[in-house]
């Protein structure tokens, strides 16, 4: 029986739902807004978090309120089909298409949480897998101009911590050599697949030549293979190439230019619970390693992303570091990798 088949048959009883807004100034004036979807039934609550990034979409979601009729589903499988058939942006077209997947995940994850709590079981029991200590990396930008300081500041707190860094054209050979000497760079994210975001990057072949050879053990995430010369240059390094921003489904993995060694499977980016479980099974059967990442969650979505990662890909370079590591000026002590989580006895939550 597939992982999804185990979950799809879980009974669920939904009496209603409501939405809880969350908001916090997280950095440099950026007001992060998310919404908690709270399903209710049988004296239990199921929580999920909508991580849509655009504030106008969050505002419209919260203003519309609980407009959907969700009480008809009797199993988790039926619920996910119901959600898949709804327009979850009934009053406003989202700023970006991927937001539809994020919102779908907020309902599906809330339903999984509720079904598990109503059934008196946790995720581990439901899927027949154990939560293992979660390996994580700290995702970090090195400033403008880039320096070693942010990295060294964190290594002073924990010399064993590993990093995921975003190379830029400003990375010169001296800086790259210093980074290599730390032995702390687990992954370099070229971010070549984003478009229209604040993190877009278009590095030329020279950047790849400087970075890839100097950091021979680092994963190479989201390279721009269409950039002149990059595909040929990376051919000997394909076993180090990983994909993140373009992975929403099994179809996306199969559409990659070559079979990957590893992909980033973010639950909210995949969207549907069925699709997520099928992606986990597909990667396991195909021998493709996985890792996860966060979405600037403020709420229970963070716990759920960490819990799922600990159950399905605990050993990957998960970009799910405890938030203290992401502070502008981190204060130790901070939790080290791997992180021992305590899954709640019931639900899709941590204890």
């Amino acid at each position, binding site marked *: 029986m597939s992982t999804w088949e185990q979950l799809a048959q879980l009974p669920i009883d939904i009496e209603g739902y*409501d939405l*809880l*807004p*969350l*908001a*916090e*100034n997280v950095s440099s004036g950026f*007001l992060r807004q998310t919404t*908690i979807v*709270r399903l209710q039934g049988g004296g239990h*609550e199921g*929580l999920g*978090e909508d991580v849509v990034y655009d504030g106008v979409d969050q505002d419209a979601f919260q203003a519309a309120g609980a407009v959907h009729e969700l009480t008809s589903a009797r199993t988790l499988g039926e619920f996910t089909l119901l959600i898949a058939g709804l327009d979850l942006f009934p009053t406003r077209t989202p700023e970006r298409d991927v937001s539809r997947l994020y919102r779908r995940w907020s309902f599906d994850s809330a339903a999984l949480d509720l079904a598990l709590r109503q059934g008196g079981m946790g995720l581990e029991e439901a899927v027949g897998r154990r939560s293992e200590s979660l390996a994580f990396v700290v995702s970090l930008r090195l400033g403008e101009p880039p320096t070693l300081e942010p990295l060294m500041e964190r290594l002073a707190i924990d010399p064993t911590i590993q990093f995921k860094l975003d190379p830029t054209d400003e990375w010169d050979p001296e800086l790259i050599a210093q980074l290599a000497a730390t032995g702390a760079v687990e992954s370099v994210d070229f971010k070549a697949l984003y478009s229209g975001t604040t993190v877009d990057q278009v590095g030329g072949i020279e950047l790849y030549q400087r970075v890839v050879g100097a950091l021979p053990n680092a994963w190479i995430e989201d390279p721009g293979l269409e950039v002149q010369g990059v595909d040929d240059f990376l051919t000997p390094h394909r076993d180090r190439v990983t994909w993140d921003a373009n992975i929403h489904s099994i179809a996306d993995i199969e559409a990659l230019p070559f079979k990957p060694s590893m992909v980033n499977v973010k639950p909210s980016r995949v969207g549907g619970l069925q699709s997520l479980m099928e992606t986990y099974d597909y990667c396991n059967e195909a021998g493709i390693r996985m890792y996860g990442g966060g979405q600037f*969650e*403020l*709420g*229970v*979505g*963070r*716990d759920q992303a960490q819990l799922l990662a600990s159950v399905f890909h605990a050993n990957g370079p998960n970009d799910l570091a*405890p*938030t*203290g590591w992401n*502070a502008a*000026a981190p*204060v130790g002590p901070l939790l080290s990798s791997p992180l021992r989580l305590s899954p709640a006895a019931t639900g899709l*939550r*941590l204890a």
Partner: protein
Amino acid sequence: MPDQQPISVLYDADCDFCRWSVSKLLEKDSHGLLLPVSIQSARGQSLLSPIAQERRLDSAHCVASNGEIRSGGQAVEWIAMRTEGAALAGRLAAAAPWIFVGGYRLVAKNRGLFSRWMTPSRLALADRVIAQREGPPESDTASLLT
């Protein structure tokens, strides 16, 4: 007319400075709308269940009676909107801005600077102010309003 529903103020009970700051906030709350709740208590954990565990001690939080939550600096603005508007916001900012902006980590980082203010007598007074509003351990918020 401001919303007169009660607001739970979640604070870090293991932080002397946070307790003292919350007591100052309560002294400024003439309408008695603010209900202190320790983050570490079962009720605090229940109220904050929508919040990521790792963020619960990062700052103070406010929770409305319908479960809505605001954290950090957002909490100040939110309390003001639901109570007396700008006048109270000004008093809150004057009374205890630091518990909302930067919260526990800011205090932790500057513990040496803040600690000289935390005399035993100040803390004892602060704990009494909180206890008067907090009621018996783990009591239901609604019961405190009657």
